[in-house]
């Protein structure tokens, strides 16, 4: 088996047993990047030298019988995490040459546990998108192809570069961020696992903000267990983030092995709304059967405000974004376009620095917060958000976890769904409710559509109960026995 095909868990074992070195493992992945990134465009920055040095550090630590939980594990980092001394762009022209003088808490924790960063992965500009088409550095290509058709598909978004790099074996695992589905939907599109933990589980310090009340970092990997291992190293209280939760980090990896016998799995009626494709409905039905077979009890639940979730999300997220992105003004850092006066400087800088989707969301956000519209849009959206949270609280009185599809379709082709932004926004229909409620939710690869593209199932848990989410996801993963491989991958 090639080094790039290993799971994170297996690679960790191999490193400990000296079957191979961190240097070899890292070189194998750098070579894969070299070979495939020109096609995939998954990385916007590759840090060969830093990766080599980190791998050598890990080898020395491992040789002493030391080394943290991720010593020598090559990871891809979404280019939304600030990395000290390494360009961090948010896939935007406005930060094209921005080199942060500080490290995000999540990446600092990963470094401290010995991880090797291969580079920074592509994403939708400022994490705004579901296709990775809005990146200033060009689209990312999904390593998967429709049976026999080499047309480039989208990897999903916004963590499309991370998802594609993990699926194509350019990295053992990656970090992502999820605001309305940005980890789960690309994970589903690329046939990998990805979890958005509970809001507050991972520190947001040093992650470039999109919508602060929704943004959460999370892991993306080829197995549920790998996600659990990686999340264990990313999570934890951070006094530098006022919204981070001061509670202990459980052993997520151990939770994967928990039985689910007697566990009540909720199936929300509203997610079976007309419009769900036959193949998605069938996949969902298979998921229910697998969990029943594993001893779980399936219960119908109702989340009555599901329909309002998407419009609510597309008010709350742009509102926060419009304010969060005001700092990109050309005055202190990032791109600057000179102007005759301050207003011209702002206008020229932001016109040149931001892409269309970012501009669109800033406009929407500014609109919904303006005097005269605030009550009708922002305030009402906040009220509905509370109702959505209450829906979940009620549902969790009768169930322990919720099973849904991750996305309404498999990956679509680059250029598709581009005419009308609303069609694109519909991709988030199953992922957004858990985001608004701040709940942990994972996507697990569970099957293929008739054209051979991966599909994912989503498991949503109670706040800070990632353990149950991992346990249920692990059973789906085992039952699904997902072993299909993408067309574009290292060694293929």
């Amino acid at each position: 088996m090639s080094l790039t095909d290993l799971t994170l868990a297996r690679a960790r074992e191999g490193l400990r047993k000296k079957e191979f070195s961190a240097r070899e493992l890292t070189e194998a992945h750098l070579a894969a990047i070299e070979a495939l990134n020109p096609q995939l465009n998954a990385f916007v920055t590759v840090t060969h030298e830093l990766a080599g040095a980190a791998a050598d550090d890990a080898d020395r630590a491992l040789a002493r019988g030391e080394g943290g939980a991720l010593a020598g594990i090559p990871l891809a980092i979404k280019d939304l995490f600030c990395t000290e001394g390494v360009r961090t762009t948010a896939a935007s022209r406005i930060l094209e040459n921005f080199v942060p003088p500080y490290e995000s808490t999540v990446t600092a924790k990963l470094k401290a546990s010995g991880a090797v960063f291969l580079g920074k992965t592509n994403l939708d500009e400022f994490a705004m998108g579901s296709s990775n088409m809005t990146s200033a550095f060009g689209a990312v290509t999904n390593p998967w192809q429709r049976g026999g058709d080499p047309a480039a598909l989208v990897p999903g978004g916004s963590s499309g570069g991370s998802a594609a790099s993990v699926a194509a074996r350019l990295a053992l695992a990656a970090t992502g961020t999820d605001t309305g589905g940005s980890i789960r939907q690309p994970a589903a599109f690329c046939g990998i696992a990805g979890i958005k933990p509970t809001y507050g589980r991972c520190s947001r310090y040093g992650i470039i903000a999109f919508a602060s009340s929704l943004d959460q970092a999370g892991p993306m990997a080829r197995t549920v267990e790998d996600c659990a291992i990686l999340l264990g190293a990313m999570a934890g209280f951070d006094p530098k983030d006022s919204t981070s939760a001061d509670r202990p980090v459980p052993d997520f990896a151990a939770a994967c092995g928990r039985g689910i016998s007697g566990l009540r799995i909720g199936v929300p009626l509203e997610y079976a709304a007309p419009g769900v494709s036959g193949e998605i409905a069938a996949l969902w039905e298979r998921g229910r059967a697998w969990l029943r077979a594993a001893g779980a009890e399936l219960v119908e639940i109702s989340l009555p405000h599901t329909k309002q979730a998407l419009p609510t999300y597309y008010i709350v997220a742009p509102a926060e974004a419009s304010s969060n992105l005001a700092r990109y003004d050309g005055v202190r850092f990032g791109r600057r376009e000179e102007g005759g006066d301050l207003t011209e400087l702002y206008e020229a800088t932001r016109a040149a620095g931001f892409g269309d989707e970012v501009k669109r969301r800033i406009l929407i956000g500014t609109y919904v917060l303006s005097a005269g519209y605030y009550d009708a849009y922002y305030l009402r959206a906040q009220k509905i958000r509370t109702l959505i949270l209450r829906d979940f609280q009620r549902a969790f009185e009768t169930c322990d976890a919720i099973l849904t599809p991750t996305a309404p379709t498999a990956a679509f082709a680059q250029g598709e769904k581009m005419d009308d932004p609303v069609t694109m926004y519909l991709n988030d229909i199953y992922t957004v409710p858990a985001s608004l409620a701040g709940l942990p939710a994972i996507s697990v690869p569970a099957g293929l559509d008739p054209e051979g593209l991966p599909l994912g199932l989503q498991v949503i848990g109670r706040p800070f109960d990632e353990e149950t989410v991992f346990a249920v996801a692990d059973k789906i993963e085992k039952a699904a026995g997902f072993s299909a491989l993408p067309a574009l991958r290292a060694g293929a």
Partner: protein
Amino acid sequence: MSYTIDGKTGPWELVIGLEVHAQVISRAKLFSGAATVFGGAPNSQVSFIDAAFPGMLPVINRECVAQAVRTGLGLNAEIHLESRFDRKNYFYADLPAGYQISQYQHPIVGRGVIEIELADGEVRQIGITRLHLEQDAGKSLHDQHPTKSYIDLNRAGVALMEIVSEPDLRSPEEAGAYLRKLRTVLRYLGTCDGNMDEGSMRADVNVSVRKSGEPFRTRCEVKNVNSVRFVMQAIEAEARRQIAVWEEGGTVLQETRLFEPARGITRSMRNKEDAHDYRYFPDPDLLPLKLDPAWVEALRADLPELPDAKKQRFMAEYGLPAYDAGVLVAEQASADYFEAVARGREGRFAANWVIGDLFAALNRTGRTIETSPVAPGALGELLDLVADGTINGRIAKDVFEDMVESGEAPAEIVARKNLRQVTDTGAIESAVASVLAANADKVAEYKSGKEKLFGFFVGQVMKAMAGKGNPALVNDVLRRHLA
């Protein structure tokens, strides 16, 4: 009689409310660890949070919250155990994030009251609407370069308390008294240094005028006035402008104005139409601020004695008249100085010396009470020398002037200059005898009924004794000789 301004159509009343921005005394900024010292080199006290770098997050500074609570308690105001931070969005070069974190809908402190005393002794209660915490912006410097503006972010993110009064003030004098009282309270509490020159206290003034008995008319806001005197001038200038507008048949428009001290007028800054839409919304980076009631009570228990209470105590404990007590408590340092002098001595005597001789000397030498050339202990010793009869009151004034000049202890000055009071009746007898002998004509006049001349004789005797005679003994001896 209430204050009015006479226009062509008769008297007009003023309605005034003040929004005071008071810079919180704290080592670090409201949401970052950067220092807050005034006068640092430009951009030397700026964290990545203050400069709003990507991914940076605010974390509330506990001490700033404590200062706001202390201030609220000092203003007899309700403390809100839960408050919230909002973003006030607008673009400006010295506002790095493009928004100011402030408390819009749910301030940390609610209604309170402040008592002001006017020159005629009238006491008025002025309502406080609210106090909230917010970040200061940076500073734009437009005079450093012919075409560019420079930005100094040292001040960006420093904690401010915005203290909003009810429209309860009715004259420039009341507004001045309110500001001075507020400043005194803040200084006592140690929550703001009240230094208007350095901009650590600034006022926005809301002014409207009306005829007696009318409801409120439209108000204008005069922004950023930076001294008590200018506040009073700005109010009068703005009121006169509004009166003129109304009396010419016009309508006062709600707008923001600036006061130009040099010309004594206010001018329009921006009107309602091009007012900013600040798009306030709750800051998603910060959780609601929840205070533990026990923590608030602990802060309350630790509050210093405030000026109103101290004034009452000075009147009760030292027998001071209200005016003297008021003068002494206006500054914590004066009150402390007085108490150091008065402790164990006669209070009114001590107050007269502090308010009279000491304050005059400070004025003359350009010193403050903190840098007084005469320490309270030394002044106390001087008072003791008078009280125990070592020197008389007249000589004490000279000794005090010498103390201001030389910094020497009063006893040493008395010894060096040989100023001890003469109580030897023999010496007084002989001085009296020679004065009376030299002024036989005046003695005759006195005896024929011109008793006012007694003072003349006292003066002559004291002069003959170089001022050192014991005044009571001199009087006794003179009376005996003239009888």
